[in-house]
């Protein structure tokens, strides 16, 4: 009796599994679409044009069959169209006439904005990305120092579609650079308490070849680009965002010569806590770092407590001074709240924030930020840092 009931359940379960597996057949090829009918947009570029207009560039992937499937492998991997208009929508119309095919937006990899346009302000154009449901909210936003059209046309990357390569770069956990995706970028352009930034594409000439590097970060104040963070600054800025992918710190000890000691930061925890004191807002930024030693100098005996303490103290001081420097640069010099202090205030003191929000930028420059760093060296690699007994 009991066994019969059990068997019935098993049979029912098997039937269910069999039925569900039919779903796999129903879908055909994963994400199948007739690619001959569609042109997938890889990148959207926005740049300044004369008379307060914008130049829109659209890079379309040229669908190509692999050689094995009968394709020739001879066609250009992408097509680039540009058009000028006073709004994105208007320029898009011009591009439609050139491209003729239906453009498919939901897979757009990047939105690239030219530096000149970003300096002029992009607020008026972003409405298009708010409204159009077909736009990809997880496309990465990049700022190009070169004109966008040249960049898209000339860049030489390993992968045929440069946009693919750039996006992969950000997804890779080893790379220090980071950028915002569209859904993060759009609201931050309009907020004072948490402003936008985007990674920059900088052309560098090397042996007569243009190489595009991604190492700088463009800082926005409202919808205008106000300045750049250089490569070492970007690294410290990433620490403040609680991100440490591939972060390397090096410094040399005073009495140990010029050879640097190199650490890799494995884990960073950042706590930004606002304090309201006598109607004045203050921040204390507590940073907790786990670091691993990558290369040391000989005379240091890491197994001794004192040497370890010394190294940790040096590391803390090094991180603290660079963080203090970057906060001063961002808050006072660039005067844009890309770190998100205002947002923290809103979360902790919503009533104070309501009063502070209209003149937040002035207050940001005046605000006192207290940085405390604690560092722990957790790994020192394979080498045994012991004095040998036979010596």
């Amino acid at each position, binding site marked *: 009796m009991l066994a019969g009931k059990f068997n019935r359940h098993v049979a029912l379960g098997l039937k269910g599994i069999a039925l569900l597996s039919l779903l796999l057949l129903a879908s055909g090829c994963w994400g199948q679409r007739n690619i001959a009918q569609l042109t997938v947009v890889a990148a959207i570029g926005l740049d300044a044009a004369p008379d307060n207009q914008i130049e829109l560039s659209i890079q379309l992937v040229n669908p190509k069959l692999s050689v094995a499937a009968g394709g020739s492998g001879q066609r250009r991997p992408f097509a680039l169209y540009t058009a000028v208009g006073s709004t994105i929508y208007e320029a898009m119309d011009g591009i439609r006439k050139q491209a003729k095919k239906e453009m498919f937006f939901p*897979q757009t990899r990047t939105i690239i904005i030219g530096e000149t346009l970003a300096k002029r302000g992009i607020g008026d154009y972003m409405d298009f990305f708010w409204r159009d449901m077909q736009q990809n909210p*997880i496309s990465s936003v990049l700022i190009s120092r070169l004109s966008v059209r040249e960049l898209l046309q000339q860049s030489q990357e390993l992968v045929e579609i440069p946009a693919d390569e750039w996006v992969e770069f950000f997804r890779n956990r080893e790379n220090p650079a980071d950028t915002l995706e569209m859904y993060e970028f759009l609201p931050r352009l309009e907020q004072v308490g948490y402003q936008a930034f985007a990674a920059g594409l900088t052309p560098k000439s090397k042996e007569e070849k243009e190489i595009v590097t991604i190492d700088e970060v463009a800082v926005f104040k409202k919808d205008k680009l106000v300045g750049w963070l250089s490569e070492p600054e970007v690294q410290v800025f990433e620490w403040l965002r609680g991100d440490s992918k591939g972060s390397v710190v090096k410094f040399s000890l005073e009495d140990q010569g010029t050879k640097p000691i190199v650490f890799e930061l494995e884990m960073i925890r950042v706590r930004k806590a606002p304090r309201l004191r006598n109607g004045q807002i203050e921040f204390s930024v507590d940073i907790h770092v786990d670091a691993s030693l990558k290369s040391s100098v000989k005379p240091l005996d890491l197994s001794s407590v004192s040497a370890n303490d010394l190294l940790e103290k040096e590391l803390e001081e090094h991180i603290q001074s660079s963080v203090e420097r970057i906060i001063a640069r961002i808050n006072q010099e660039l005067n844009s709240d890309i770190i998100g202090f205002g*947002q923290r205030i809103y979360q902790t003191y*919503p009533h104070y924030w309501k009063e502070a929000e209209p003149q937040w930028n002035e207050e940001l420059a005046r605000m006192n930020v207290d940085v405390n760093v604690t560092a722990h060296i957790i790994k020192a690699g394979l080498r045994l840092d012991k004095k040998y007994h036979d010596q």
Partner: protein
Amino acid sequence: MERYQISGRQFFFIIFAAVVSLIIFSLPTQLIPEVKQDLWLSMVIGVLIDIYVAYILYWLGRKYAGQSLVQYSRTVLGPIGKVFGLIFVLFFFLVILSTMWLFCKFLSTALLPKAPAMLFSITMTLVVSWAAYLGLESIARMTQIISVIILIASLLLILFSIQELRLDYLLPQLENGVAPAIKAAKYPASWFGICIVMGMLMPHLINPKQALKLKVSAVLLGALVMTVTFLCSLALLGPYLASRIDFPIYYFSRTLRVTFFERIDVLMLLIYISGAFITFSALYFAASEGAAQLFGSRSHRGWVLGSSIIVVAVPLLPASNNASFAALYFDKLFPLLGLLIEGGFTTLIFAVALIRHYVERGK
């Protein structure tokens, strides 16, 4: 009248699907701009109101065993009860029309922008009226499969978003006190209230004693899944974006990425469309059976066929392309009407039935 029999589990899943699916896109669009991080409180209040209504319907359903909401409003209130019955039936019908309109609007803006809205109302009405035509038992059997898929899909969606969440976006809690959250509770309360469909299903339940327990646990589970999904979308998009974009939950699902899979929004559409199917068919059945009981027809089937013509034409109704009317209707009129009928009318019937109960006892 045909007698259908549904099991407790089937009843549970019908209510669960009704809570979760149909409003998963429309409710946050109303709720998030008004209360942002405090939406959980509005949801809790909405659930409490709904549990109160569930208790009333349970008491009435037990007292007048074998009778539906439409039938016992006649038994309790006499001839005026017929008017109440008519209002309930019309209300079910209104809910079908409103949600069908939302369904068409969502799919024609988000999924297939080029397709005419009629396409969605025609295909949906076709399958829904077929299900309702076949009766409650067929609906209930399908619900058992579909609701499990809905539950799994929504859990997956929450799971996929966990690593991207920024919980500090959920602060500050109750920045303007509890008043806004209480005021906004009218949205979840009025939408959850469509579960008065319970009053129509209860006579078909094999064991009506379980009705209250099943109904309350289904609403709790459904509201929990929804609240967590809403909070996840807030914690991913941030309150600024979430309160300024139409269909924040759909946008949320489009920002998710699981290793190399993008476009997880398919899961969201799976929940929405399959759940909408269940809820539409349950409502459709309730409305047409109510109408049949009211007018003494032998079967509900004729009413299904008759009303489907109007439902198909929803996108063509004169008011449906008027954006300001739609905003007024969904933000002001519908919550008011919903609360009045779901909370007010049921309470009235309950009060009269209670008085009768004690008068009869006193004799």
